[in-house]
């Protein structure tokens, strides 16, 4: 099963996710907490993210949390998407300024040399 990189541009976290694994499950398995974990079943909407870039397959999700117009804008539940390419995601809802600021700050953190 091919493995893909998932990059959360809101928090700067990245992790590996297999094509048969949900993004949320892959995140949990490596101990990251950059997306909130709720029911893990597409029902509660807790793990809503926006996919900014990359293809994915999508399982069934509650229409209450992901109506068609939201899905059209890339809003999905992380527990129900399976990457078919490297993904860039962001947390929702997030004001644009906060995304930029956090991504910048995160980038500085991740590029700081380890001692």
């Amino acid at each position, binding site marked *: 099963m091919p493995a893909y990189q998932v990059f959360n541009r809101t928090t700067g976290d990245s992790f590996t996710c297999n094509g048969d694994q949900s993004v949320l499950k892959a995140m949990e398995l490596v101990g990251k907490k950059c997306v909130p*974990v*709720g*029911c*893990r*079943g*597409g*029902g*509660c909407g*807790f793990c809503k993210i926006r996919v900014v870039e990359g293809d994915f397959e999508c399982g*069934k*999700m*509650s*229409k*209450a949390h992901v109506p068609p117009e939201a899905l059209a804008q890339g809003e999905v539940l992380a527990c129900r998407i399976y990457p078919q390419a490297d993904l860039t995601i962001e947390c929702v809802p997030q004001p644009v300024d906060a995304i930029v600021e956090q991504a910048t700050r995160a980038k500085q953190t991740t590029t700081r040399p380890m001692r």
Partner: protein
Amino acid sequence: MKKGVMRPGHVQIRVLDMKEAVEHYTDLVGLIETDRDDQGRVYLKAWTEVDKFSVVLRETDQPGCDFMGFKVLDEDTLVSLTQGLKDFGLEVEEIPAEELKGCGRRVRFTVASGHAFELYADKEYTGKWGVTEVNPEAWPRGLSGMKATRFDHALFYGPNLPEVLDVFTNVLGFHLAEQVMDPDGNRIAQFLTASMKEHDIAFIHSDEPGQLHHTSYYLETWDDVLRAADLISMTDTSIDIGPTRHGLTHGKTIYFFDPSGNRCEVFCGGDYTYPDHKPVTWTADELGKAIFYHDRVLNERFLTVLT
């Protein structure tokens, strides 16, 4: 039972995928499939329950709970309680017999928290599953998974708790077994019963109406709760929290999610109550301990993840 409501009788749960849901509630929780209908709904019961079904699954695109039903003593009780609901000012909808297969006519009403409830007097009596009516053995062989013994209660989140309390106590004859009070004297949680059980139904305040927190199924022992936890791991089922103990009700419990994200509980033990008992009160500043007696801290997911 003060006004003839006997017990929780059924709950209809919305699921995203019927096949996955049936596997969850039968293979894992241990309910037994008893029927299906032409709407595609699947009927389930736990083995100690005497009527045909207690859990109904309906496939749709939004998980949650359609309604919960209570069985009342008889037709006369149903008539008088219906009048009581109307006098209270609630709209009452008549659901004809056999709309749910094997169930008599139902009276449906929606309370101020946004949740739909039903009363009914008759349901096909099929007896306990797998044991005889005369000289019954202790338990039936052939049960699956957690071997849940009954659908026990549900917890709902919604607004207008005082009005909901008024309907359940003054119209339906429940009594308040446990409560959580905030510093301003508002009741933010109310556990209500028509029996000796610490809750047949519970409500926690939230601004958003009509939300399901969990449906709950009864097990006999703490060892059964531990074994349920083992099964949750063996099947890689989404776990919420547990095994642990509640402060409220003092039940021993574990929470997990069905494949559509509806929270389930299996639990054992818990306190008992009689109508002359004063409500057990927890204060909001001890809410962490009230909910999870060992952790003693608030758990955001438990408080906010709902369907």
